[in-house]
């Protein structure tokens, strides 16, 4: 597992960044990009850019030869790991261009809109490619629908909270309708996280080879599973309570986000730790 720890960080941060950007891009795409509130939100996307940049930087830590990183271009089309890196790089580039242009080149409305669309699509495609990277036919613990379901659920949950935090100070965007929409997406994502967790555990319980089972691969399996369930539950209770009592504040959103990240981080530690192939 230790060798995969950078990937726990990479997948979490990138899923949060992609989820947040996709939701905000959907809001921005309908707006006049040059009105003050749109520009304000666009400039706050620096947070998405930093998260995605950190994710990409962290991912290089699991390489023996990070300086040869460009060699992944050689597998474009053939290897899903290559596709994932290149699509995620495109996402980072598009978000970076969009953010920079919202400061320096506001008159490039068409190009900015295009970079918004490319960012949105590469964000989505990146999540899909990330899933396919792990859906290796010889790795039964990863090669199932639970992989993409879990990744997209994390992106929806953490992404919605990130989006809420970013739009929160901007009145034009922090409308009751948009708030309701983002809370709905996020809570639905959280429910999906919990359901996928349960169904994936059941899927893993049915896997064995002559030498091992997923639970035998990870000494901390049950305690980490319990920790994840408790954290998910805590996030759900805090989130629902603050929504129902109309007590949403930046602090409550941040606290919920941290709980979600802790829960999904634990989930990712489990995911990498139960790794086993169909054989030895």
């Amino acid at each position, binding site marked *: 597992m230790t*060798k995969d720890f950078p990937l726990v960080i990479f997948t979490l941060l990138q899923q949060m960044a992609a989820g947040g950007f996709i939701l905000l891009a959907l809001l921005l795409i309908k707006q006049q990009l040059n009105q003050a509130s749109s520009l304000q939100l666009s400039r706050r996307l620096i947070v998405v850019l930093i998260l995605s940049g950190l994710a990409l930087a962290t991912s290089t830590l*699991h*390489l*023996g*030869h*990070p300086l*040869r*990183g460009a*060699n*992944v271009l*050689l*597998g474009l089309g*053939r*290897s*899903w*790991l*290559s596709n994932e*890196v290149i699509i995620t790089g495109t996402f980072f580039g598009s978000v970076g261009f969009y953010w920079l242009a919202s400061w320096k080149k506001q008159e490039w409305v068409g190009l900015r809109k295009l970079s918004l669309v490319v960012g949105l699509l590469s964000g989505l495609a990146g999540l899909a490619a990330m899933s396919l*990277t792990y859906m*290796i*036919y*010889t*790795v039964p613990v990863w090669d199932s629908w639970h992989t993409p379901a879990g990744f997209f659920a994390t992106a929806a949950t953490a992404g919605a909270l990130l989006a809420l935090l970013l739009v929160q100070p901007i009145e034009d965007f922090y409308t009751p309708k948009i708030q309701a929409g983002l809370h709905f997406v996020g809570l639905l994502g959280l429910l999906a996280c919990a359901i996928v967790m349960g169904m994936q555990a059941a899927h893993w319980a049915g896997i*064995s*080879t*002559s*030498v*091992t089972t997923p639970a035998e691969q990870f000494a901390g399996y049950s305690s980490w599973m319990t920790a994840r369930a408790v954290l998910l539950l805590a996030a759900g209770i805090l989130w629902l309570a603050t929504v129902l009592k109309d007590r949403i504040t930046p602090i409550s959103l941040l606290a919920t986000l941290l709980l979600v990240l802790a829960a999904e981080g634990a989930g990712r530690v489990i995911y990498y730790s139960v*790794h086993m*192939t*169909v*054989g*030895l």
Partner: protein
Amino acid sequence: MTQQHGFYIDTEKCTGCKTCELACKDYKDLGTEINFRRIYEYTGGDWHQDATGCWIPDVFAYYVSMACNHCNNPACTTVCPTGAMHKRDDGFVLVAEDICIGCRHCESACPYGAPQYNAEKRNMTKCDGCYERVGEGKQPICVESCPLRAIDFGPMDELTEKYGYQRDIAPLPPSHMTQPNLIIRLNPNAKSTGSRAGTLANPQEV
């Protein structure tokens, strides 16, 4: 494409002496952490009551020597992002160590444990089938070293003619997945792929 080569492993003859593993280690100058060839000890047993009421043990142990099977459908090359892990025209699966970025994705994918990360070189390494020796008309070093003559190597059609088609045995994966160039002679105690009748007795060693 020239003739595809493969290994024959006789689990009836093999005594688990690990000479093949050490010969490979010596020839390839490998440290303690890397074993291109590994010997999996599969052991188990139970008590059974026979018709007369007598309890009889059926303890078993057998050894499966495993390196790279230079598969026809290698999982390692499929996932490799750089193409460093590649199957040559002559069928050997090799890693181009100067291209490999050391992401270890092949290690995650291979169900035989063949690609191994060399922490000093910071890239993947693996059994190359001693293709240079084979090119000179010699056998791989593991084959020559085996005191029991329990390993053979050669063109797959010749091996098949001599030894048959058996490829599946616990604790190896189902052979249909990566189509290994491997032929197994079954030990009388051999369990079928996926069997939970035994356990791996030397997990620290492999």
